[in-house]
């Protein structure tokens, strides 16, 4: 009999029952919530008179609506204030642990879960946010859910789910200088398409992935949903266990030893059977930049913008050119920008900030550019300041902010204006995503964002060595 994947193993140990619909009822080990997408779920519970099945397995924070300059309450935005008040009321009434603005544990939900050691291999983890696959970097089965599913997790600590197929994605060889985890995932999405992962769970592996540290792995897994995959995971190994050792919610002593044995046991077997296998050569990946209105519309920095008729969806490409206002055949290198943003659940961790600071050190942001660096959590902010990274950024002309989702998504005061073009380390270049319906987003690694901020136009980070 062929070996089993991590997905098979976690599915089996978490199956409560086969439901009448043919779905499986899957136990959810950890539930993370934030101020968006949850309020109606609590209302539905109240309507039914249900309590929370496992209140100790839900943790809450606030990230999406947080102003990253002035955080004092009440917020200037009364809707944001009302939303946070609703969360505060709900966590109090239902007895949920909450890391609010006054907590040193506050931050972007997908940054703090791993940082606190809440996220662990072999567990199921759900959150009302599509970037929940970030946590799957630890070998957890972690995925985003809608509000009605948040309700189900609160009321039952479980979900009705269909088992998916598994696609193994091998990234072999080694990455050239100036090429980061962000370039790897952008290349994967470009190759397989933004809908290519529908019906699949992705398992990332191969020498490039194995060599990555946990923060790089989180960047890769974070954007699985941009490739259409609900979950994209990486098998746990000693890198995973070393990262978790000593973290707040990770067991200590003998219990830690038993945890490590369990974590390693859930990794896919060497002879595991996959429904599909895709191979990507790491050494062929360049610094990558998106040019269109979905994350699959990307090119290597030395390439020219593609002709629609040469792409799989010519109409989609035409729509993208219409929004971006660019011409096929022109280079992406040298495209002028207005704003530079380093942050988001994709790229706001300490190593991202170090990579960004490494390029910013001793240089100046181009005078025409508005540039900001937003750490992913209050703790990362403190750690970065301890290393003096904030000084590097402010000396270079970046604004140094408080932790939050910031300019990733247009739900807080950090937004694009009009037709501004933003070099961004976030995850989505959808029309209007950064808060202005006419705004334009180019996704890239944090180091590429900084290089572009300095040149005032899209730059090649390899020239900044």
């Amino acid at each position, binding site marked *: 009999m062929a070996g089993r994947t991590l997905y098979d193993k976690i599915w089996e140990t978490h199956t409560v029952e086969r439901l009448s*619909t043919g779905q499986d009822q899957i136990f959810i*080990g950890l539930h993370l919530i934030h101020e968006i997408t949850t309020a109606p779920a609590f209302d539905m519970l109240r309507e039914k008179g249900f309590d929370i099945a496992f209140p100790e397995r839900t943790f809450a924070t606030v990230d999406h609506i947080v102003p990253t300059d002035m955080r004092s309450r009440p917020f200037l935005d009364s809707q944001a204030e009302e939303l946070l008040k609703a969360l505060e009321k709900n966590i109090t009434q239902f007895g949920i642990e909450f890391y609010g603005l006054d907590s040193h544990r506050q931050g972007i939900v997908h940054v703090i879960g791993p940082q606190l050691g809440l996220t662990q291999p072999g567990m199921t983890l759900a959150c009302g946010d599509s970037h929940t696959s970030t946590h799957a970097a630890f070998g957890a089965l972690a995925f985003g859910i*809608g509000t009605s*599913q948040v309700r*189900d997790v609160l*009321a039952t600590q479980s979900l*009705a789910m269909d088992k998916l197929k598994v696609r193994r994605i091998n990234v072999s060889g080694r990455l050239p200088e100036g090429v980061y985890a962000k370039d790897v995932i952008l290349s994967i999405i470009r190759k397989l398409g933004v809908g290519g992962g529908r019906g699949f769970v992705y398992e990332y592996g191969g020498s490039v992935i194995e060599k990555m540290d946990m923060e790089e792995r989180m960047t890769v897994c974070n954007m699985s949903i941009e490739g259409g995959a609900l979950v994209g995971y990486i098998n746990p190994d000693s890198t995973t266990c070393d990262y978790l050792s000593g973290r707040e919610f990770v067991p200590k002593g003998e219990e830690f030893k*038993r945890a490590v044995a369990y974590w390693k046991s859930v990794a896919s077997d060497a002879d595991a059977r996959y429904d599909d296998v895709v191979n990507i050569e790491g050494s062929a990946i360049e610094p990558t930049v998106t040019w269109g209105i979905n994350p699959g519309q990307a090119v290597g920095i030395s390439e020219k913008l593609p002709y629609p008729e040469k792409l799989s969806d010519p109409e989609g490409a035409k729509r993208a050119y219409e929004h971006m206002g660019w011409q096929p055949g022109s280079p992406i290198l040298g495209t002028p920008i207005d704003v530079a943003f380093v942050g988001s659940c994709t790229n706001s961790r300490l190593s991202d900030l170090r990579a960004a600071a490494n390029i910013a050190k001793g240089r100046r942001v181009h005078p025409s550019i508005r540039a900001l660096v937003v750490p992913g959590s209050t703790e990362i902010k403190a750690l970065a300041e301890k290393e003096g990274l904030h000084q590097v950024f402010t000396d270079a002309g970046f604004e140094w902010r408080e932790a939050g989702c910031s300019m990733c998504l*247009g739900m807080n005061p950090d937004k694009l204006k009009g037709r501004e073009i933003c070099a961004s380390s976030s995850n989505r270049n*959808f029309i209007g995503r950064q808060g202005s319906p006419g705004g334009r987003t180019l996704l890239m690694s944090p180091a590429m964002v900084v290089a572009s901020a300095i040149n005032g136009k899209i730059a090649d980070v390899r020239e900044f060595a």
Partner: protein
Amino acid sequence: MSTVTKIIQVTGTVIPVRGNDIDTDRILPARYLKEVTFSRMGEYPFFDERFDQEGKAKHHPFNDPRYKDASLLFVNKNFGCGSSREHAPQALFRYGIHALVGESFAAIFAGNCVMMGIPTVTVSFNKMEELMKLAESSPKTVYTVDLETSTLSYDGKQIRFDLPASSWNALVTGAWDSMSMLRANLGKVKGIASRLPYMTGFRD
């Protein structure tokens, strides 16, 4: 809800919205997620594609009077990709859309729809192209999505559609409103929890 609502048929006229990979930020701009309830979402579907900054209506199928009062939505490939926001299907549903027909749907979006009792059924690229053309040239055509026969019927014609078996079961038996069904097994859920090492602190 204490009564089971079975979703068997949706009948009505259609709004055709062409394009692949239409994301949920486009369906429902993020600023509306700051509202504490879903109650007003029906005012906002495709808002930034329908109105300019001054609030002036733009050319969009949702603004086209020919498609007023439709109950079905025709779309192309990978509709609803991106953010998990249930606000997007809530906006469509509260606007009056009770079934979607397309080439394919993004995973989280389709899951949210089932949990709201909205069928998201799929047909081939060629069939979808025919349906789009018909909807655009003959907006008064009435369609019926019939789950029992897995067919879309209109103008005396019938075509078969696909819907994942579990979604079909959930809608047709009324099990799409899943909370009570899951809650009935709470004892077994607790049993699973007691056997998972991370739930018991990895104690011996």
